[in-house]
């Protein structure tokens, strides 16, 4: 039996994914557990393996298409099998909801169909076959009340007959809307439709499922370029806006004398082990977090959730944007382990190989822009965390010690914290503790 | 020998044809007649001498230059002229016009506007006669141009193989529209082609009634005795253009005048009849006047005849029992 392959939901936050590339062509064999397609989701590109074998009968959404989760993206089945019924059941198959200029070279002809074209909103006109119209007229039914099951929602004779048999079907909805409602487990009768005569559209179901699916109107001037808001950009934007919108963010800064940390790093180096300054910062922050649990909490509607573990997020800049892989249980890990893991995660991030578990579940984040020669900066908290530590560059600075001006390796730390959870003084103490640990790394032992 | 009675008939037919054609030309010039009208003037000896030996039961097929054959095969001038004018009273109820004119009831299987188109049809009529063993013959009239069509060659072969009672009468008037025969045809005499099909072929003066008559008489005897077809090439000349309005840039006006003034088949025949004492010039003048009057009357009849009713346009596509 032919069946749909849907846009898989990869983690709680995901609402839609961008298909980057089909690794199996239409008509080709799909091998169970072998890579089937690549998609760009929340923050990165994932290769999705086939859950079952068969033949890829139809690619509904080609490379570049942004598809809401659970929506069909392809049909798999037996070679030569008829899948027109399945295709018809979701209405217009050819036009993806949004097709953007794809990052990857266009792979299939279908994918080149729509360049930066918006989702076509359903127009007011109702299409019905002549026979369906004739029958509806005979039965005294307005065809606009009937769901069309034919191609592109065409109302056919069967739809009229079904309507006659089942007039109780009082909620008018598109077949796609019904499908989405079924997949999202939502009662379609409780949704207010926005279509003609309040017909429930797929969009209505998605917004009802807190899945935002705003139709985008693209107006493009000749000397402007329009970059569709999608994938990682969209998620980053939503997160940052949510962060600043919901939290009461405040900021402290402190300057740290890194001379001893530099010495520590040199000692490691001397025995052939490689740790970065950032690793040392991570280790110190982790230790400080165990001592200041409020800095390692989340504000929720139910209350403040204190976490007895520290999952440290590390902000990594990648080509597509920003990603925050997480070192789980960092408070239990040695500097060596932290160094190893952070370097692996950074590599994976840059190679788009992060799996959802690699970048989820963080409790605190460290963001370092020292490599860009930034003295210090204010970071925005990665929700639902309570704080973020921004790390500036490490540089020799003239410092007054006693009455002398000496040259020391100095670094600026900036802590952004959620004032709803943490007040200024404890936040200051927390930051001071990190400074203390960095200036006296033997305390880590 | 041609009987006196038959000579009179031939003379009468030749005049009817001539005045019919001249009247048709006049009507065309007066814009009372439309379409392609190919006139037979100058070639009357062939149709008249041939058809004088046929009955209504014998078959002919004709050409785009078919008025002469039609009249010689028994058509009345008024109905023929009415057909030229596309009238309901015409032989073909205005469906045919000049190029397909025929009185089908007189054994005329039609003028045929496709060059060479009628030759196989006459061959088939001859086959029918042979199968029905009814002593009928078929005659296919065609021009020099048709002798270069495949149907000519296929039909001569077929008729020869089957020894059909058919006479192939080629009216060689020297031009296929504007192209002289020598430029289009590989043989000096078209009758030479008979050799290729193992049948007799003769070339005669097509403006000489007696020559045509005798050659045809021999051919009919051969046909009726079951020996098969004969190809008769009648060298003649059309003294008018290929069609009404032909500028005739392709031929010398002096030639036309020479043929018209010294080789006119009617005048030649008239002289022979008078010289032989068959008829007086005055008697023959009467025939001429009568033909002229008949043609004028035919034009009147045609002009005064109704047009066919467009409501009937679909009639006769099929025979319906």
């Amino acid at each position, binding site marked *: 039996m032919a069946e749909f392959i849907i846009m898989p939901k990869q983690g709680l936050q995901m609402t839609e994914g961008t298909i980057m590339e089909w690794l199996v062509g239409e008509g080709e064999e799909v091998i169970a557990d072998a890579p089937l397609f690549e998609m760009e989701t929340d923050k990165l590109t994932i290769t999705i393996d086939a859950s079952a074998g068969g033949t890829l009968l139809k690619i509904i959404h080609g490379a570049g298409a942004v598809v809401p989760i659970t929506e069909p993206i392809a049909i798999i089945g037996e070679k030569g099998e008829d899948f027109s019924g399945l295709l018809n059941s979701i209405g217009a198959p050819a036009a993806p909801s949004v097709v953007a200029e794809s990052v990857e070279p266009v792979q299939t002809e279908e994918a080149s169909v729509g360049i930066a074209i918006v989702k076509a909103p359903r127009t007011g006109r109702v299409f019905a076959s002549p026979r369906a119209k004739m029958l509806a007229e005979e039965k005294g039914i307005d065809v606009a009340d009937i769901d069309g099951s034919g191609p592109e929602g065409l109302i056919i004779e069967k739809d009229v007959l079904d309507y006659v048999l089942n007039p109780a079907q009082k909620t008018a909805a598109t077949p796609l809307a019904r499908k989405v409602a079924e997949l999202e487990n939502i009662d379609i009768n409780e949704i207010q439709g926005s279509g003609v005569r309040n017909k429930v559209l797929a969009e209505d179901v998605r917004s009802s499922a807190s899945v935002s699916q705003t139709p985008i109107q693209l107006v493009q001037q000749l000397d402007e370029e329009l970059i569709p808001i999608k994938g990682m950009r969209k998620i980053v934007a939503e997160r940052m806006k949510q962060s600043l919108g919901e939290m009461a963010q405040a900021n402290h800064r402190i300057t740290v004398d890194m001379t001893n940390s530099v010495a520590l790093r040199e000692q490691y180096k001397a025995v052939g082990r490689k740790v970065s300054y950032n690793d040392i910062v991570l280790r110190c922050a982790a230790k400080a977090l165990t001592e200041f649990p409020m800095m390692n909490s989340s504000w929720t509607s139910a209350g403040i959730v204190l976490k007895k573990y520290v999952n440290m997020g590390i902000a990594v800049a990648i080509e597509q944007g920003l990603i925050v892989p997480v070192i789980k249980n960092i408070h239990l890990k040695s500097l060596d382990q932290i160094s190893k893991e952070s370097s692996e995660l950074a590599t994976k991030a840059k190679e788009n190989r992060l799996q959802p578990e690699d970048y989820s579940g963080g409790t605190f984040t460290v963001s370092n822009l020292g490599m860009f020669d930034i003295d210090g900066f204010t970071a925005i908290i990665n929700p639902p965390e309570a704080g973020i530590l921004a790390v500036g560059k490490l540089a020799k600075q003239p410092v007054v010690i006693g009455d002398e001006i000496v040259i020391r390796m100095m670094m600026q730390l900036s802590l952004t914290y959620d004032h709803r959870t943490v007040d200024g003084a404890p936040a200051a103490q927390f930051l001071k503790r990190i400074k203390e640990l960095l200036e006296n790394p033997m305390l880590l032992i | 020998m041609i009987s006196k009675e038959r000579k009179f008939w031939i003379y009468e037919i030749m005049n009817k044809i001539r005045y019919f054609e001249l009247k048709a030309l006049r009507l065309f010039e007066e814009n009372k007649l439309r379409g392609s009208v190919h006139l037979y003037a100058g070639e009357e000896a062939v149709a008249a001498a041939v058809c004088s030996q046929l009955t209504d039961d014998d078959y002919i097929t004709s050409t785009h230059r078919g008025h002469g054959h039609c009249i010689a095969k028994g058509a009345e001038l008024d109905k023929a002229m009415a057909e030229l004018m596309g009238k309901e009273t015409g032989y*073909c109820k205005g469906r045919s016009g000049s190029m397909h004119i025929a009185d089908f009831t007189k054994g005329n299987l039609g003028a045929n506007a496709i060059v060479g188109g009628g030759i196989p049809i006459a061959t088939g009529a001859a086959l029918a006669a042979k199968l029905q063993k009814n002593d009928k013959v078929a005659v296919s009239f065609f021009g020099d141009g048709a002798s270069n069509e495949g149907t000519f060659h296929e039909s001569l072969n077929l008729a020869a193989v089957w020894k059909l009672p058919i006479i192939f009468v080629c009216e060689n008037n020297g031009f296929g529209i504007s192209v002289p025969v020598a430029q289009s045809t590989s043989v000096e005499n078209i009758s030479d082609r008979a050799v290729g099909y193992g049948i007799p072929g003769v070339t005669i003066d097509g403006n000489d009634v007696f020559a045509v008559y005798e050659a045809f008489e021999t051919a009919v005897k051969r046909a009726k005795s079951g020996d098969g077809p004969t190809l008769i090439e009648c060298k003649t000349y059309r003294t008018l253009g290929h069609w009404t309005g032909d500028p005739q840039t392709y031929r010398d006006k002096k030639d036309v005048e020479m043929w018209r003034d010294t080789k006119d088949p009617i005048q030649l025949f008239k002289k022979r009849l008078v010289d032989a004492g068959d008829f007086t010039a005055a008697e023959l003048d009467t025939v001429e006047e009568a033909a002229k009057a008949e043609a004028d009357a035919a034009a009147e009849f045609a002009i005064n005849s109704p047009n066919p009713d467009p409501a009937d346009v679909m009639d006769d596509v099929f025979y319906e029992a």
Partner: protein
Amino acid sequence: MSKKTYATAIRDVIAEEMRRDENVFVMGEDIELLGGIFGCTRDLYKEFGTDRIRNTPISEAAMVGAGVGAACAGMRPIVELMYMDFTLVAADQIINQAAKTRYIFGGKAKIPLVIRGQQGIGRGNAATHSQSLETIFMHFPGIKVACPSNAADAAGLLRTAIRDDNPVMFFEHKALYASKFEVPDDPDFCVPFGKAEIKRTGKDVTIVGSLLYVSRALEAAAELEKIGIDAEVIDPRTMVPFDMDTIIESVKKTGKLVVVHEAHKVAGWGAEVVSEVVDGAFKYLDAAPIHLGAKACPLPFNIELENAVVPSVQQIVEAAKKVCYR
């Protein structure tokens, strides 16, 4: 009833009609001792002699033209063309002469002429000997066109054709000659022209096909039944006159139409059917009709290629499913 092959049914009708009417005779290539390359005149010369079962030279224009002339002169000729592709060699005699003679002579002529022969795929005869040409002769008023799909229709339609006073183009199909069918023994058994046959009744989709495509449409219908689609299959049997009414009535019932023929799709007669059905049953249509025909490509020799050019049973099934939104 007797079970006969399509070829035998044709031969028997020719013999019966020749016995019945001495004006009936046959001419064609290789029809005497050889009996025609498909045996449709086998041994008939023994009974009727070689005047009436008459070998011709390979001169299609002269043969057909002689048929026209003989018909004008009171005979009822049957001209056998070895391949109906050769109608094109004789096209002037068919189209300009046979078809038009009655009309241009103001209804005075009768042309009781049958031009018969076989056409189509199935024997690897390639581009010039495998065409399906019934469509082109439908275009010219004045000729009737018959397309029997089985031995009984071949017998009944041929008898009607021979007794008709109009020129009839009788298109047999080479792949059907060996097929057997119950044929009525009645020596006056005629199938009227212009009367389609509903080969299978159904309520979901109307499939129209002729010649070889009647059996293919029926095969498709059997496939469709397995998935719950009840197809009605109609064989028009004659192309001129064409029984559009039966098809329109069927489409009024089913709301869906698939027309399939072996003739090329482009401007093929299926397009005419679609046009007439849209005109005559528009409001009854539940789906856009589908027209299937041979690809716009000469018929190739290789059997795989040949099969690739003409519609398959599977394509008929797919088309029917599509119009049924399945």
